[in-house]
């Protein structure tokens, strides 16, 4: 009854909880055991970026085919993505407090970028709610969505790499080796990323079907 990829996502995350808390991790100063946050904090952000990717994909589809169903999906995906930024921000604050010594620092370009990206997407929902005509709303918000996605990537992926960042893997080129991940971290990190992306898709699936039902109800 439940689709296989949903079960797979749940099992992968369960695996990261059970194995992620007891496997051996690199011994690093300051970080200590908090290195394990890599299994939980980072995949949440990957899920957020993935949802924004889904959102912009269907925004482009809406512009090329001009159908309202793509617009609904695009809207829902942006909502799920924005939702995932909440635990992402909260866990990031927590981790920062106990390693960098502060809940939030404006010195770090990644934190600033994320804050701006969240505001850009909040504006997306305000824009949507301010247009009453369905087709007009679909078109204008799709154009804004593409702008928002590009800006988010500039602020989160590009700018932090141009300057120094407290985040590993930034301030330099984007090679994944710079994450200083050894094989024991990878065996939990990659399943965690796939797991959280699948769970975010599951939530999107439920939200999307709900929105379609509501859309159908309004038409009748």
């Amino acid at each position, binding site marked *: *009854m439940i689709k296989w990829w949903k079960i797979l996502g*749940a099992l992968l995350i369960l695996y990261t909880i059970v194995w992620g808390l*007891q496997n051996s991790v690199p011994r690093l100063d300051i970080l200590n*055991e908090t290195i394990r946050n890599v299994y939980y904090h980072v995949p949440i952000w990957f899920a957020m970026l993935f949802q924004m990717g889904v959102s912009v994909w269907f925004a482009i589809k809406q512009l090329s085919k001009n159908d309202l169903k793509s617009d609904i999906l695009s809207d829902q995906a942006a909502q799920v993505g924005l939702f995932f930024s909440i635990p992402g921000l909260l866990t990031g604050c927590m981790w920062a407090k106990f390693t960098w010594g502060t809940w939030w620092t404006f010195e770090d370009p990644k934190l600033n970028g994320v804050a701006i990206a969240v505001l850009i997407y909040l504006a997306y929902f305000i824009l949507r709610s301010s247009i009453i005509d369905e087709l007009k709303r679909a078109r204008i918000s799709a154009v804004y969505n593409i702008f928002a996605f590009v800006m988010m990537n500039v602020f989160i992926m590009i700018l932090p790499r141009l300057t120094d960042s407290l985040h590993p893997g930034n301030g330099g080129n984007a090679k994944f080796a710079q994450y200083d991940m050894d094989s024991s971290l990878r065996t939990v990190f990659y399943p965690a990323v796939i797991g959280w992306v699948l769970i975010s898709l599951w939530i999107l699936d439920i939200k999307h*079907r709900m929105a379609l039902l509501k859309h159908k109800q309004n038409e009748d």
Partner: protein
Amino acid sequence: MLAFFISSAQTMNAEPAMADTFRSEGKIFVVIAVLSIIFICIISYLVYLDIKLKKLEKK
């Protein structure tokens, strides 16, 4: 003299503090069980929502 060498060798090899004993005998499995239960509950709720939605769609 010997004691001095031993103690200085120990400080040189000082490793970052890790929760080694915490994991080996510190009942970390209880925490793992608690987290797993919470996660399974949330997933069960998603399954419940999914099934309920399917029923609504069939109407």
